[in-house]
């Protein structure tokens, strides 16, 4: 399987995603510059973390108009698996590929720490290899991860089983203390209705080897490899 890792000016987790795909998982991977108009024949697309275009105006607001995003849109519309991590999630929200928006963290603090998220649904390309209710220990590093959507949108997300990751305690319980940013319904990640576009604030690519403090993120990438082998992309 081939991963395309999109590089915006200001991306800073692109090499982590590339390393996870290429060196940890042993898959093919290629960087794609934000001005490119092709995804290099990839089977899966990663929008990495960082500060695309300096986060000027709003996180993801300028990146949304990068030329490569037209290809990402086309790829997503055709059912291709796309994952946006942290800033990549914010880009997907601004691009309208996922519903909702990010507000400043309720604490107003930039949070840089390990958190726990519970995998809520397994029927997506990025959770297919997880166990039901599996709790993953993953790092976060963001100032604007306070997920917001209108109440009726949040209800629809829950009804359609689009909330894929929720901030929980190490034991897997939703608690106020376990929510690092004030996200509504403790939402840490979600998917679109077609379930092939996924965004999450924590960084699975930074948690793929035990030397990094957790290897729990690897299952996200293993999932897409597993899903890819059963998809005819």
């Amino acid at each position: 399987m081939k991963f395309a890792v999109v590089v915006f000016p200001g991306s800073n987790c692109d090499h982590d995603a590339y390393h996870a795909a290429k060196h940890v998982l042993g898959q093919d991977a290629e960087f794609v510059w934000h001005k490119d108009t092709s995804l290099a024949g990839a089977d899966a697309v990663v929008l990495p973390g960082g500060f695309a275009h300096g986060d000027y105006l709003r996180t993801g607001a300028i990146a949304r108009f990068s030329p490569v995003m037209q290809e990402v849109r086309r790829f997503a519309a055709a059912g291709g698996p796309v994952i946006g991590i942290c800033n990549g999630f914010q880009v997907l929200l601004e691009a309208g590929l996922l519903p909702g928006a990010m507000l400043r963290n309720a604490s107003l603090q930039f949070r840089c720490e390990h958190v726990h998220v519970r995998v809520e649904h397994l029927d997506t390309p990025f959770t297919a290899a997880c166990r039901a209710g599996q709790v993953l220990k993953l790092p976060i590093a963001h100032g604007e991860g306070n997920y917001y959507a209108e109440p009726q949108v949040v209800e629809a997300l829950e009804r359609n089983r689009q909330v894929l990751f929720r901030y929980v305690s190490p034991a897997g319980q939703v608690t106020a203390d376990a929510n690092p940013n004030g996200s509504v319904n403790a939402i840490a990640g979600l998917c679109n209705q077609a379930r092939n576009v996924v965004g999450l604030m924590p960084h699975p690519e930074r948690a793929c080897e035990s030397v990094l403090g957790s290897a729990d993120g690897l299952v996200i990438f293993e999932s897409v490899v597993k899903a890819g082998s059963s998809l005819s992309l």
Partner: protein
Amino acid sequence: MRVRVFVTLKPSVFDPQGTTVAEALHTLGYGSVESVRQGKYFELDVNASSADQARQVAAGAADQLLANPVIESYRIEVDAPGAAS
């Protein structure tokens, strides 16, 4: 033509920055300030032949880029043509 665009979080959206600013003002003795909403302010110099045209350009810019309609709303003011700046 000078156009001013004010972007603020919708009333239904919690504004943690505005709340913090309000608390700071209370600490400073501004007890009469009941609430604060923080937003963004843009000045656009638009080459337009009428105030309406300038407003239209600014509304397009706000819809497409300056504001995120999920969480923000905006207000536009256009300087009357010929008015002293």
